């Protein structure tokens, strides 16, 4: 029976909360600007790209797979949108970027879903391939938008005082949550991640379900690139570096299990937000930039530990 270890996992999840609140308090005391509305909005804006990408990746993780390719996917797609803005115009650039994102997702989905290759290897290789494509496309030099028009609204605009990228992330989250919780496809994602064989014996195609999850991942990476391109109005070949880890850390931190079969969009957003506050707080307290990488590592370990404890609890049930 799981209640004891379940309670232990709950305690650890609770411990994470206590730690987080404590951290917030310490930062707030040392850097009073931390809790100012301006800074809070800043954090929200900063996590909007990670959060948007994490929406699609959450489907992949719940389906029991991984997507590590989103980091260099973001790089390549941001270079595409920035460069194409100069050639195809803003609407054309957005369309091209979304198509390219879907193509990346389709390729991952084909290999992992239909050909049943290992998700870790496929997407890790994809991470490398997309980085190569980004360098090839940009020739290694910076690209930038020559004459920004309405395209700036996605990254820099505000509406009722709230940054547009935050609104985009929230709208995307509402849509993703609906897709996951209320549609037949969402059910299939949970079933495939929970027990692929049983899903197969229920007439559900695991291949198709996994394929669609990767499509979503590619699509949300493209959305992330639109926000990124619009905010920076330029790109170079390292712009998306490390995003795959931030996305994954946020998802795990939110409590979506790496084992698949369980998780939620809102928890993912919450995890991404916690991570954003931690990283922002460290910088405000004067820690060097690279400190946040060490902390991200620590947070991932803690979250994986909690996930494992919950799983142990179930195994004893």
């Amino acid at each position: 029976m799981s209640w004891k270890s379940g309670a232990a996992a709950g305690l650890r999840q609770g411990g994470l909360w206590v730690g987080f609140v404590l951290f917030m308090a310490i930062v707030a005391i040392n850097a009073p600007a931390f809790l100012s509305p301006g800074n809070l909005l800043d954090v929200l804006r900063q996590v909007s790209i990670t959060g948007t990408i994490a929406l699609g990746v959450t489907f992949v993780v719940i389906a029991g797979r991984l997507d590590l390719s989103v980091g260099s996917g973001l790089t390549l797609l941001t270079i595409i949108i920035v460069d194409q803005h100069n050639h195809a115009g803003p609407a054309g650039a957005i369309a091209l970027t979304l198509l390219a994102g879907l193509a990346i997702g389709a390729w991952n989905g084909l290999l992992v879903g239909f050909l049943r290759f290992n998700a870790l290897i496929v997407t890790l290789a994809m991470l490398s391939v997309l980085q190569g494509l980004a360098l090839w496309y940009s020739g290694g030099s910076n690209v930038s938008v020559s004459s920004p028009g309405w395209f700036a609204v996605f990254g820099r605009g505000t509406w009722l005082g709230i940054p547009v990228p935050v609104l985009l992330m929230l709208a995307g989250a509402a849509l993703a949550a609906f897709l996951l919780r209320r549609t037949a496809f969402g059910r299939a994602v949970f079933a495939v991640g929970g027990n692929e064989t049983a899903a197969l014996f229920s007439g559900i195609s695991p291949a198709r379900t996994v394929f669609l999850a990767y499509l979503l991942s590619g699509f949300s990476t493209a959305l992330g690139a639109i926000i990124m391109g619009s905010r920076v109005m330029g790109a170079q070949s390292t712009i998306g570096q490390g995003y795959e880890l931030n996305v994954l850390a946020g998802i795990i931190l939110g409590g979506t299990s790496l084992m698949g079969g369980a998780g939620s969009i809102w928890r993912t957003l919450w995890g991404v937000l916690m991570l954003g506050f931690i990283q922002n707080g460290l910088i405000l307290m004067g820690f060097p930039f690279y400190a946040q990488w060490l902390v991200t590592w620590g947070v991932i370990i803690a979250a994986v530990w909690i996930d494992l404890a919950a799983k142990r609890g179930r195994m004893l049930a």
Partner: protein
Amino acid sequence: MTDLLMIRGVSKRFPGVQALTGVDFDLRPGEVHALMGENGAGKSTLMKILAGLQPADDGEILHRGEAIALRSPLEARERGILLIHQELSLSPELSAAENIYLGAWPTNGIGLLRKSELNRRAGEALKALGCDVGPRTRVGSLSIARKQMVEIARIHAFKANVVILDEPTASLTDAERDQLFATIRDLKARGVGIIYISHKMDEIFTITDRITVLRDGIVQGTLTTSETDADRVTQMMIGRKLDAFFSRAEERFGEEVLRVEGLGRRGDYHDVSFSVRQGEVLGLYGLIGAGRSEVVESLFGIRGPDRGKLWWQGRETAFPSPRQAIDMGLCLTPENRKEQGLVLGLGGRDNIVLPSLKAFSRLGIMRRSREQAVYLTYRDLLQIKTTGPATALRTLSGGNQQKFVLAKWLCRKPKLLILDEPTRGIDVGSKAAIHALIAKLAEEGLAVIVISSEMPEVLGVSHRILTMADGRLTGEFSGAAMTEENLIRAVAHHAA
């Protein structure tokens, strides 16, 4: 003579459930003591306490007269208390020897594995069982029965004095079961005490000395096996009297639903031909590995056959995919309900609608009120005990889990229902309910194929029985020809 094991007043509470209340239980040296009860009666909880997997809230356990508190499975094993679980706990990639001594491998001074020593010792333990598995064999390549022998070899390896056998014959053939019983008698003779958990009445009366019955976490009594009978035990287990174990439907069949001819798949089965009609229950009897599950999985589209023809409702049809099979009305409850039948992390409601996501949605959006309605209908119809529509099925008993597998298909109103080992490892109450359900469904005109390794079951529910051995059909029996002797002869004659 002091008892080997004395359990006094053990209680265990989980949130919302009193799993055990003041349980007393004794085990003498050289005794086989059956622990019986419906699923959810508390047997597993008691066994987990004995195996050191979870602590008791209250009460005491005396092992050889000494009060013990078991904090881990390792501790239990060191005292010679060994649980052989119904779900095999072996690592498929390791050798038999490595599995037998899992976690207690002999090592030399610097921590390196002493392989030859390990293999020698494991070889002896296996030989003592009369088992022909070599210690170096990779466990993943063994049949289920042989895997179980590897697990049982741990008894010898750890010189256990208290052995808990949890449903040990669930996946064994009759011959393998006899071998197991010989082992049990041998252990008895050496003074080992054995707690034997099984739902199979005939086994209980063949091998045990005493029977303790649990119901709702309370001991209903301890009986001497030679002085009681199956009716009395069943009555104690369910608290009421069962009228008939099996009910047989009237034999009025309708149109042919399915016919296959010359079905074959390399390495699995050959030249299989049969048909089944509306209202008919066709039994498929054979030993594990005879190819029964492979045949029905092919019909359901999991792994298609190499050759053969299929007629569905009189029309020749291509072999379907699982999706097409389900939409045609050909449904399969698979052999392994935990691995193939259910998503255990999800609730009953989600599992019921899983094969019917289209039917329960409009434009891809799930219609929740319909899902809830169908969940409630089948929960009540099949008398499923659960705490809510979203309660993870992992937490339910085997019988209740199996009823959810049935509900998945029944709510689709299938034309042919294939049940592969529908009552394996579930309690007598649920078993009788499922048998009654099969009869009722057939009466309503459903065609049913029942695969079972349990002869009383297949004899009790079927109108006609096919036997299978070594990938081939070896006999067909109906009416008065459906006898145990005929079935045994039909499968044994061909068994290699």
